[in-house]
């Protein structure tokens, strides 16, 4: 079974630029999550989708971050404009409709200069 795919794996941009991350969840997983993990900290949930609807986006900085999950499969997370404090690893995870397990992708490491 293929795992969660993310791209790019690394991205370096300057502050005030825009950036987008892509995630392809495990086939059949209805729930998709985006996390931000700053160095030395645990992952912090940004947004959770159930199919193509948003379940929780309470910690998403909506003035600069946006996410979509068209057709309930792939998802993109965008930052516009980026700030220095956005430097982090952005993790995508998916889960099936049963059980507690989240399956994480390898993440995208973003560096904002």
């Amino acid at each position: 079974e293929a795992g969660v795919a993310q791209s790019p794996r690394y991205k370096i941009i300057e502050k005030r630029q825009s950036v987008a991350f892509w995630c392809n969840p495990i086939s059949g997983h209805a729930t998709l999550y985006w996390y931000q993990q700053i160095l030395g900290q645990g992952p912090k949930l940004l947004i959770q989708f159930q199919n193509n609807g948003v379940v929780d986006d309470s910690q998403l900085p909506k003035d600069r971050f946006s996410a979509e999950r068209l057709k309930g499969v792939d998802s993109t997370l965008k930052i516009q404009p980026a700030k220095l404090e956005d430097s982090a690893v952005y993790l995508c995870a998916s889960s099936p409709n049963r059980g507690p397990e989240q399956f994480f992708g390898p993440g995208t490491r973003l560096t904002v200069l």
Partner: protein
Amino acid sequence: LAKTTQPISMDSYEGQEVNITCSHNNIATNDYITWYQQFPSQGPRFIIQGYKTKVTNEVASLFIPADRKSSTLSLPRVSLSDTAVYYCLVGPDGPPAGNMLTFGGGTRLMVKP
């Protein structure tokens, strides 16, 4: 919201048994306890989940006392490859949502030769 408290770090040697304890004094009746493992440059990986008493799988054991206010993840005979960060999460069973998605700082386990 059940908050968890874990030691920041632990050291061990190869071949020893490692026990990592997580405190969750405000755990709710319908909450489960889930542990994840994260290696550098990778997303977290599900290890084990339990509700009460003891749960064992091929990777670890989870001990939960009767009052459920704490839990202990036990890793038998650790090797260098068990060096990772271990996260304890508490929340309802089923597809993770809401307070099940608060990872906290985790416990950094260092296994030495």
